[in-house]
C-alpha cells in the first residue's frame, strides 16, 4: 500500500525512472540485441565503443551541405564563344545565337539540411530541405542596363528519399536510393530586367524550384578494403508540366571516386563524373519579347539548356570524432558539350558536415 501510494504521488519521478531504464537499455547494446544479429548485421557494425559514442546508437543522422557553383563564358556544343560574339549589338546581323542581353557570371549557392533516420540495417529515410541563393551578372545593349545584377533566393524543392542496402559483404556494399522531390521551391521569382520597366518573371536559371514532381534515383556500389572506391549511377526523372508551362530536363550521371587513407582520420579522394542533362521541355511565355527574335537572352530559350559534361573532382574527408565528419570537395569540368550558346560551368565546390551513427 505504501509503495502504491508513493508511486502514485510521485508519478513524475517514477516515469523518469522508467525513461532512464529504457534509455539505458537502448544505449547499452544489450545481449538481446547482439543475440539476434546475423553475420550480415555484425559485418555492418563498427567496433567503436558505445561508451565513447552513445549517439552512434541513435537512428537519426544530420547532414549540412554548402554547395557553390560558378558559370562563366559560353559554349555552343564544345565550341567556345566570346561574350562579344554572343552579345548582339546594333549593326550586327541578329540570329538565334546572339542576344541583346547576356549573363556573364552566374553564381549559385545552396545550403542543404538533410535529416536521416535509419529504420533498420537495410532501410534509411531522408528529408532534405534546401535554401538556394543565386546571383547573375549581365551586360546588355539596353540603356541604363549596360551592366546589372539580378539576385534571387528562397527555399527550394523538398526531397523525401529512402535508401535500401542491396548487398553487404566483407568487401563491398551497395545501396539503391529513390525519392520524390516536391515542388516547394518558387518558379515565380521576379526581378528588374531590361525586358520592361519594373519587375518581370526571371529566366529559368534564376528560379528556385522546378515546379514539378521529380524522382531522384541512385544506385551506389562501395568497395571497402585495400582499394576503397565507389561507383554510382544517378538519375533525376521529372514529370508533368509546371504552372509556367515547362518542365526542366531529366539528368543522368555516372560517378566514381577512389579514396586514399592519409591517416585513420583523414582521407583524400579523386574521382570523375559524366553527366547528361536534357533541355527544357515547354516554355515560359512570360520570358519572351514581341519581336522577330523572341528570346532576349540565351537563358530564356529552353533549347539552350542541358548537354554533356565530364568533370574531375577531388577533396578530403576529415573524421573529426566518432560522430562528426567534414568533407570538402571541388570539381572542375574537363569537357563540356552544351546545347548552346549556354554559360559553361567554371567550377563547383561542396562542403559537407555530417553527424551520424
Amino acid at each position: 500500500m505504501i509503495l502504491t501510494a508513493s508511486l502514485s504521488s510521485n508519478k513524475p519521478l517514477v516515469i523518469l525512472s522508467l525513461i532512464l531504464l529504457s534509455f539505458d537499455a537502448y544505449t547499452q547494446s544489450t545481449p538481446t540485441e547482439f543475440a539476434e544479429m546475423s553475420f550480415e548485421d555484425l559485418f555492418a557494425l563498427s567496433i567503436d565503443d558505445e561508451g565513447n559514442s552513445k549517439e552512434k546508437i541513435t537512428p537519426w543522422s544530420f547532414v549540412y551541405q554548402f554547395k557553390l557553383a560558378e558559370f562563366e563564358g559560353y559554349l555552343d556544343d564544345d565550341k567556345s564563344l566570346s561574350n562579344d560574339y554572343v552579345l548582339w549589338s546594333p549593326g550586327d546581323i541578329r540570329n538565334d545565337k546572339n542576344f541583346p542581353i547576356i549573363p556573364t557570371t552566374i553564381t549559385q549557392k545552396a545550403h542543404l539540411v538533410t535529416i536521416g533516420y535509419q529504420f533498420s540495417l537495410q532501410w534509411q529515410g531522408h528529408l532534405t530541405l534546401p535554401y538556394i541563393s543565386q546571383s547573375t551578372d549581365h551586360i546588355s545593349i539596353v540603356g541604363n542596363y549596360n551592366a546589372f545584377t539580378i539576385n534571387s533566393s528562397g527555399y527550394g524543392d523538398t526531397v523525401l528519399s529512402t535508401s535500401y542496402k542491396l548487398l553487404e559483404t566483407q568487401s563491398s556494399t551497395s545501396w539503391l536510393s529513390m525519392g520524390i522531390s516536391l515542388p516547394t521551391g518558387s518558379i515565380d521569382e521576379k526581378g528588374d530586367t531590361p525586358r520592361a520597366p519594373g519587375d518581370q518573371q526571371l529566366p529559368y536559371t534564376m528560379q528556385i524550384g522546378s515546379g514539378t514532381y521529380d524522382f531522384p534515383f541512385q544506385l551506389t556500389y562501395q568497395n571497402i578494403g585495400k582499394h576503397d572506391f565507389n561507383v554510382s549511377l544517378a538519375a533525376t526523372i521529372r514529370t508533368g508540366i509546371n504552372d509556367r508551362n515547362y518542365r526542366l530536363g531529366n539528368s543522368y550521371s555516372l560517378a566514381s571516386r577512389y579514396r586514399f587513407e592519409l591517416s585513420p582520420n583523414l582521407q583524400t579522394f579523386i574521382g570523375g563524373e559524366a553527366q547528361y542533362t536534357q533541355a527544357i521541355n515547354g516554355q515560359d511565355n512570360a520570358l519572351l519579347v514581341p519581336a522577330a527574335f523572341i528570346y532576349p537572352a540565351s537563358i530564356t530559350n529552353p533549347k539552350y539548356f542541358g548537354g554533356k559534361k565530364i568533370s574531375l573532382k577531388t577533396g578530403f574527408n576529415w573524421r573529426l570524432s566518432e560522430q562528426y565528419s567534414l568533407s570538402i570537395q571541388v570539381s572542375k569540368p574537363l569537357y563540356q558539350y552544351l546545347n548552346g550558346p549556354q554559360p559553361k560551368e567554371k567550377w563547383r565546390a561542396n562542403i559537407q558536415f555530417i553527424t551520424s551513427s
Partner: protein
Amino acid sequence: MKSLDFKYKKMVWLTGLLIFCSHLNALPNLSKEQKLKSAYLLNFTRYISWSDIAKNAPRPIFKLCLQSSSPMFSFMQELVAVSDLKKHHPKVQVVAIEQAQLCHLSYIQSALSRPFSVLSDSLIVADSKNIKQPSTAITFFTEGRKLRFEIDLQVLQSSDLIVSSELLKLARIKR
C-alpha cells in the same frame, strides 16, 4: 514533524529507486568490440557442424569454452541465455577453459599460461593475430573499424568439422 520524516524517507526511497532503475540494465564494462566478438562466436556455432554433436538427441549441447576477461564471460553467458530461448539452435554451455573437460569451440583472448588438453579436439578462435596459439582455425581482425575474421583452411581441413559455405564466403581465407 512526523509528516516531514515520512516525506524525507519517501524521497530517499524514490531516489534509490531512480538510481536502481537507471543502473538496472547496466552491463559489465565491456567494449563493443568484445561484444561483437561474443556475437560472432555464437554465430560460429550455427555455421559449423561438429560430428559428435549431431548424434546427440533430442537437443544437442554445445560446449563453448572461453579464456577471456570476466566481463566478456558474463556477457557471453547472457548472450547464450537469450539465444537459448530459440529452441531450434543447439543448447550452448559457456565454460571457462580452465575448468572445461570438453570444448567444441575455444576462444582465446590472451596467451595461455599453460597447455590445455581440451584444446586438442577443439576449434580454436583467437582474439587477434597477436595470439600465437597453435592450430588456431579462426582469427579475428579489424578492417576499416569493422570486425572481420580469417579462417585457416589447412587447420580446418585437418579437423572433421563441416563448415558452411556461407561462413567461408564471409571469411578472409588463409591458405
